[in-house]
């Protein structure tokens, strides 16, 4: 596409194969995109078209991506390559210098601040450090989007909060009254996910969901992302450099290097790649 030898696999057609790296001893025999009702040909839920962005120096050059409904796209790359910036573009926390960002087919570049807030309600975001409001309890954090954007009464909100906390394997009676400072890193991440799905958002964006976590907690969070894919069919974009976890959750992986997407394909295609950069990036995985 660009003549870049590393750019193999970009926009490759066949991505039906799925990594057989099972989780919990549960072999993954069903192609992940079919299991999720993911349809590559449908109108993409998220689309970046020829996006350029610079701050003091160029950060993203001609980035094009499509994320289909029910898909989990992992954006991988070295630190400082602009992975999290792509999430901020999708949320319209940043506006590209050139190119388009579309959510559900709607171009969001030119939306007013208030209109952008509306679009963001379709999305849930799980931040690297969880970004829980530290002056609020766990209950208030998870209830926040419900209080802001729904007409649910207090009992309904409590019921929904309990349901979401249970969904992320937390004991509501134990954690609801706690402040974020009293939680472990993994629990904070799970509360962050519960807050992200409280409003039944159709799109979930994860920024380094497993960074800074021990291997067991990393497994728990990875399992949770898979569960959300499987049971709720949410469209997910995961920014991560934890490739073990990425291979477990991704339907496709985009590798970002030198300001561009140098690889876009399924985990199996990535694992089979002979490209030196990709082999170095994957290490002994």
């Amino acid at each position: 596409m660009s003549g870049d030898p590393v750019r193999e696999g970009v926009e490759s057609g066949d991505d039906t194969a799925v990594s057989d790296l099972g989780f919990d001893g549960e072999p993954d025999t069903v192609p992940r995109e079919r299991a999720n009702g993911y349809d590559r040909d449908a109108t993409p839920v998220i689309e970046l078209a020829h996006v350029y962005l610079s701050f003091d120096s160029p950060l993203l050059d001609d980035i094009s991506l499509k994320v289909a409904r029910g898909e989990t796209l992992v954006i991988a790359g070295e630190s400082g390559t602009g992975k999290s910036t792509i999430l901020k573009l999708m949320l319209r926390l940043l506006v590209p210098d050139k190119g388009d960002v579309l959510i559900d087919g709607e171009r969001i570049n030119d939306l007013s601040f208030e209109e952008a807030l509306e679009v963001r309600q379709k999305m849930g975001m799980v931040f690297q450090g969880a970004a829980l409001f530290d002056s609020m309890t766990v209950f208030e954090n998870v209830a926040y989007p419900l209080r802001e954007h729904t007409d649910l009464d207090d009992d309904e909100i409590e019921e929904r909060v309990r349901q979401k906390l249970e969904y992320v394997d937390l004991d509501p009676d134990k954690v609801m009254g706690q402040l974020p400072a009293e939680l472990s890193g993994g629990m904070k991440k799970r509360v962050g996910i519960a807050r992200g799905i409280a409003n039944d958002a159709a799109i979930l964006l994860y920024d380094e969901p497993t960074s800074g976590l021990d291997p067991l907690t990393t497994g728990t969070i990875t399992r949770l992302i898979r569960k959300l894919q499987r049971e709720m069919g949410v469209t997910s974009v995961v920014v991560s450099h934890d490739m073990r976890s990425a291979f477990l959750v991704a339907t496709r992986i985009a590798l970002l290097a030198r300001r561009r997407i140098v690889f876009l394909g399924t985990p199996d295609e990535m694992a089979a790649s002979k490209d030196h950069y990709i082999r170095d990036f994957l290490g002994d995985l």
Partner: protein
Amino acid sequence: MFHPLKRLNEAAKRAVHAVQSYFLLAWNAVRFIVARPFYGGDIIQQMDSIGVQSLGIVLLTGFFTGMVLALQFSVQMAQFGATMYLGRLVTASMIRELGPVLAGLMVAGRVGSGIAAEIGSMRVTEQIDALNTLGTDPIKKLVTPRLLAALVMLPVLTILADLIGIFGGNVIASLYVGIPTSLYWRTVWEQIAAGGFLLRYIPTDFIQGLFKPFVFGALISITGCFFGLETSGGTEGVGKATTRTVVTASVLILTTDYFMTQILLYILP
């Protein structure tokens, strides 16, 4: 030769941009006062944090300022045999200048820095981004309640600082100078009535004394929020934001006080 000019140009651009952002933030914070949703709980919480929790420090400084004013004036006025007018001088100084300015400076130090630290920490831990992604405008949620609370509480704190300052003057007048309390309070009232009344009942001194803290409240809250929202560079950035807030808010209070005094003396001599 060219290089320093270029840097000067860049610095000037940054300064103009910062001033523009400051006024834009202030405008949006004011605009959201009448826009739904209203964060009533946050406003009450901020009124407690800005007003009630600043009461101690404002009363303490007001009391000692009133005492030191009475002490200094008594020495000077004794030379002219005019110590009986001590109440008038203390009252005029406290109501017109020292009450508003001292309350403003104390709140800038205590509350302005707190606002910058809180919002700055929220910025560096991505809580501001989280608000945005949850469909909440951070200005509406964080800045407007603080602005409203400061607009209400600064005048209240100033009235209390004025009262306790005048009372401090009374303590010195009766214990040190030997002026009877009844005479002291009569001269206090004479001073209040001397400037005349607006709409028959509102002493013009009060107008001057209460307009200033209203403006100072806006300056302190917007400055704290501005530097908090602009924070970058982790915890070190939070420290810088608090320092900048206290310095900027204090300078703004003292400079706008001068210009407001000029204007108010022209309008209400």
